[in-house]
């Protein structure tokens, strides 16, 4: 393996955890600016993580080993998936874990243990957070599956890297159902990452918490891992959304300039997503919990429509 290959592989594995707090920082900064205040620095999440790692932990006596291992499992799922998806290059990542069903169900794995951890402390907040999280996750799964299925059917492969490689060659007309699927995917992105209008990631009010409620009992390094994991998950979804549905600009060779160019294009796509999420969070209110299923079923129906289009033409 050449030096470039080693560096590229390392970059692939470390990219998601290293870059995700920055994404969160930028979203918060844009929201702050829209609220006409200066806001914290975009690097603040890094300092928050470092602060949490330096703190002692407090663990409830009612919990079991599930509480202790869940943050590691959730975090490792995001690292593992982050290393398997196409970010800036197709060559580093043709792995078996790139199958889109494997990716989806690995995320369910993480959610499963997070929900269990939420119930483990025996507090009402965690229990309700888990209940709502499983509700949102169960309903969002249909839309997510269909939105990932469209590129898969179009590219005739279930591996995400393979999908990007094939979709790069498509014309705009052929990509029409892919754009419809992208809408479904975006809704699923908002739902799975606890963003508006499904959940408020910055709330302190128990009645409006879903994700926050499950991690309420955590502190110290475990809380750091969970916050980091949710940032990673957001970046993974953004990367998938950008690269699968707008598959241009990804390099397929181990060439220095190609990698730099791909990173630039990726940064542009991510900036677009980040802006969209931040503006959305600033202009609409969070939905009442029983309006959320309507949104998620819309995502499912959009996906079904897109699948219908793509297999009839």
């Amino acid at each position, binding site marked *: 393996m050449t030096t470039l290959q080693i560096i590229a592989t390392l970059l692939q594995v470390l990219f998601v955890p290293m870059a995700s707090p920055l994404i969160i920082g930028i979203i918060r900064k844009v929201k702050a600016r829209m609220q006409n205040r200066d806001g914290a620095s975009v690097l603040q999440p890094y300092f928050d993580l470092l602060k949490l790692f330096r703190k002692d932990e407090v663990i409830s006596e009612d919990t079991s080993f599930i509480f202790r291992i869940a943050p590691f499992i959730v975090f490792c799922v995001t690292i593992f998936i982050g290393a398997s998806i196409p970010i800036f290059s197709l060559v580093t990542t043709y792995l078996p874990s790139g199958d889109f069903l494997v990716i989806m169900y690995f995320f369910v794995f993480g959610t499963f243990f997070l929900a269990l951890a939420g119930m483990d402390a025996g507090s009402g907040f965690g229990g309700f957070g888990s209940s709502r999280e*499983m509700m949102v996750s169960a309903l969002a799964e249909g839309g997510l599956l269909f939105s990932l299925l469209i590129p898969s059917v179009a590219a005739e492969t279930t591996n995400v890297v393979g999908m990007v490689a094939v979709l790069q060659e498509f014309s705009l007309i052929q990509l029409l159902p892919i754009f419809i699927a992208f809408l479904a995917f975006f809704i699923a992105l908002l739902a799975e990452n606890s963003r508006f209008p499904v959940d408020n990631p910055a709330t302190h009010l128990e009645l409006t918490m879903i994700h926050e409620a499950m991690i309420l009992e955590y502190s110290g390094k475990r809380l750091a891992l969970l916050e980091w994991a949710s940032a990673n998950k957001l970046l993974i979804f953004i990367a998938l959304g950008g690269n699968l549905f707008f598959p241009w600009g990804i390099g397929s060779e181990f060439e220095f300039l190609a990698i730099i160019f791909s990173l630039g294009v990726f940064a542009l796509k991510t900036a677009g997503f980040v802006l969209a999420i931040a503006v959305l969070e600033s202009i609409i209110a969070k939905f009442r919990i029983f309006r959320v299923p309507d949104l998620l079923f819309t995502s499912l129906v959009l996906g079904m429509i897109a699948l219908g289009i793509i297999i009839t033409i």
Partner: protein
Amino acid sequence: MIESFATIDTFFFAFGVLLLGGFSGFLVSRIANQKITDMATQGSAFIASLLVMLFSGSILYQGTGVAQSFESAFPMLSFSFRIDGLSAFFLLIISAVGAMASLYGIGYRKQSGGHYRSESFGFFFAIFLAGLFLVPAANNALFFLVVWEIMSLASYFLVVSEYHEAKNVRAGFLYLLMTHFGTVLIALSFLLAQRATGSFDFDMWRASLGSIDAATLRWIYGLAIFGFGTKAGIIPLHIWLPEAHPAAPSHVSALMSGVMLKTAVFMIIRFFFDFFPGAPMEWGLVLLVLGSISAVLGVLYALSESDVKRMLAYSSIENIGIIFLGIGSAVVALGYGMEKFAFFGLAAALYHTMNHAMFKSLLFLGAGSVASATGTRDIERYGGLIRVMPYTAVFFLLGSMAISALPPLNGFASEWLTFQSLFIGASSPSILVKSVFIGSIAALALTGGLVAACFVKAFGITFLARPRSDASRDAKEVSFFMLVPMGILAFSLILFGVFSTTVIAALVGVVGSIAPATGEPLRFIFWEFIEKRAIFSTVLPLEWVAIGFAAVLASVVAIAQWFARKRSIAIVRTWDCGENLTSRTEITGASFSRALMTIFQGVLRPTKQTDVEYHDEALRYFIKSRTVTTDRVDVYQDYLYRPAQSVLRWFGDKAKLVQTGNINTYLLYIFMTLIALLIVATK
């Protein structure tokens, strides 16, 4: 060496051991106590199951089936056995689960309070297992009906073995009714086939496919689907499942849910792929629709249950739905003549059959351990059991993870394969077929998410947080005999998931041993597939996924622990807002699933009844207590079975008019019938 076990003599020898053990219970109970009787009966069932495992495993390994036939006194009934690849596969599953259930049963009777007599239970258990072993092996329709009845009746007696509770007896009766309803339909289907082919022999049916006309074939398929569907638990014929499975002792529930339902699946596969292959692909669509409905409704009903065994019973209905999805896509593919894809779908169905047998029996054994340790099946009385029953908790967790299709366990592998077969089907030419497949994909995706929700609730409420009752606080871990089968099953979940490529390749081989109507054994085409295992290794190499994930987990844990090595961990109370936290401040099972139930309330029809008791009945102002009862309207009983019952009763009432009790009227009837017959005969 292993080939020497592949003769039918091993099979009969296992039978001998089984029946000897069953009968010996009566003798042993006279001279020893119940515990020794348990060991004798369940132990011999265990040994017999191991022998059948050896037998079926060697058949699969060796690749050729066995057959044997004995004539009987009746002309049409011949005791003919035929064990080919498919039978051997099902026998392997049945005997593996049977072995685990028998081992569990050795410790169960004492643990659960000793409500049934070991000798009678052991006897019926042996008969039940005998029926289960014979069903895949029968090669004659009448013989099949005989062993099917033996299996159903023996399981009835097992379901009502704890007859001190009236509702168990009612559940058993409902089970008996429904299974005989199914048997009637099956018998009708067999009779039609016999009329068309002239014989009750399955071999005759295999040979005479071309000579049966389409109309008869349609009835045969339809009756078979609904007859065997009753046994499998397809909605709306499922009403016996959630009653009978909780009523039976846990290892019997494990056998019924894990294995008996699969015998119905086995026969449906036989009908559509062995006896009468090449069904018009509309039948595949019927199976897909039935499967989707059962899958989604099954898991929704499971979410609404607070009895852990009823929840598992509904979950079995859901998994049978998923198996039907696989079979349905295979039938559609075969209807279009695309045999390769047909076998792919069939392999998915078989894989899920095997996986479901493993994790559902594990879950039932776990639920049984918990129920017998705490004395109740109500999930709202559980809590904190992970501290007192750590092994059961870990095994139940693995079972929950497998059933929720989390990679790299086996549930994920079979659901992945089912998805793939549905994806292939979605690209068929006709719009109708496409839409059904899209609907099935949506149903399967929805089910996957809901199952995870259901089992987070099941595991979380049962094992985590604080105990919700004294029974849970004082529970103890169950005995060794009950833990070992759960452990073996849990280990196999990991094994069959991680080595999924090998399993899929082997299954394609099993499926290839079902010869199609063209007479050419498809085995030739499929040996190539298996030889080129490489095709499947790039398909789902879960072993690398598992290793990769484990490596990442190990490194992250090491780095994080090192990074925070100087930090301390304080163990304190859960944050309690200044209150004292009791079991009442935790989430309950009903409130956990309330959100999903509210969303699906059109389907689930939840009801809520509030009863208020006042201090002063005249004043009705100061409330003494308020009781809220949440329940679910049983749609099938109210809109399907009760009306059917009333219609039957109406007919019965009208028919009563004929029976006057007066002998003169009866003589008149005989006279009138004679006159009528004379008129008809002389015409």
